[in-house]
């Protein structure tokens, strides 16, 4: 399955809904989307990963890259994920300490800490 991306605005947050597989082939599309959002002035991003079937380190690298970009503008990048097999990859790499991970988009959008 290929990657699907859609964005919507909720208050001052931009929610990026990602579906399908994020790997070495598709990750550049996600990178482009995040770069474009930051260039357009969206610095508070919520990446909804509930429909992601597969994530590898290339995808993690893109998310870390996105985080670095929004931080440069004092922004935030929050993730929404409940899937154990995806969460496991964040734990293995220690990235659970780096990304705030929420169970619902509503939680992520209203989070301020």
């Amino acid at each position, binding site marked *: 399955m290929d990657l699907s991306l859609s964005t919507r605005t909720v208050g001052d947050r931009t929610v990026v809904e990602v579906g399908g597989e994020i*790997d*070495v082939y598709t990750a550049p599309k996600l990178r482009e989307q995040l770069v474009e959002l930051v260039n357009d002035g969206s610095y508070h991003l919520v990446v909804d990963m509930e429909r992601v079937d*597969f994530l*590898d*380190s*290339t995808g993690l*690298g893109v998310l*870390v890259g996105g985080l670095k970009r929004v931080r440069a503008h004092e922004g935030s990048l929050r993730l929404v994920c409940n899937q154990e097999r995806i969460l496991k990859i964040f734990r293995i*790499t220690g*990235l659970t300490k780096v990304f705030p991970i929420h169970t619902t988009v509503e939680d992520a959008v209203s989070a301020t800490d």
Partner: protein
Amino acid sequence: MATVELRFSAQPEHVRTARLVAAAVARRAGVEEAVLDEVRLAVGEACSRAVGLHRGNGLTAPVRVVLTEEEKVFSIEVGDEVPGPAGGSVDGVAGIDVVLDPDIEGEDEMGLAVISGLVDDVEVTSGESGGTIRMSWPVSGTSALP
């Protein structure tokens, strides 16, 4: 002898194919269903790394994936043809500090970190003719029926 051997040109779009083939062969070999996700992810990481190495070094040679089913173990070997330190074993997987360093892309290192975190039995070697990542998983002994 290898159960299945796969060679693919070092293009990112073929890594998914390698993942699918590896998972299918692992399932047939009797690797537990719960572990197949790990097999898929680990082989994907190893192949992505090999593709990156070949492309980064301008190599046109294919990436090699060897899947071997034995009595009690299923193993996967992913080989690249980028020469490294002879007889060397690659260790010292980068920590999270490297990954978060704004000046370092770090995806390659993160790939190895994922493999090391996922697979108990993994060996990364490099030599004059290229590098190899060898991973193995126990099998239950009862292969899936055709």
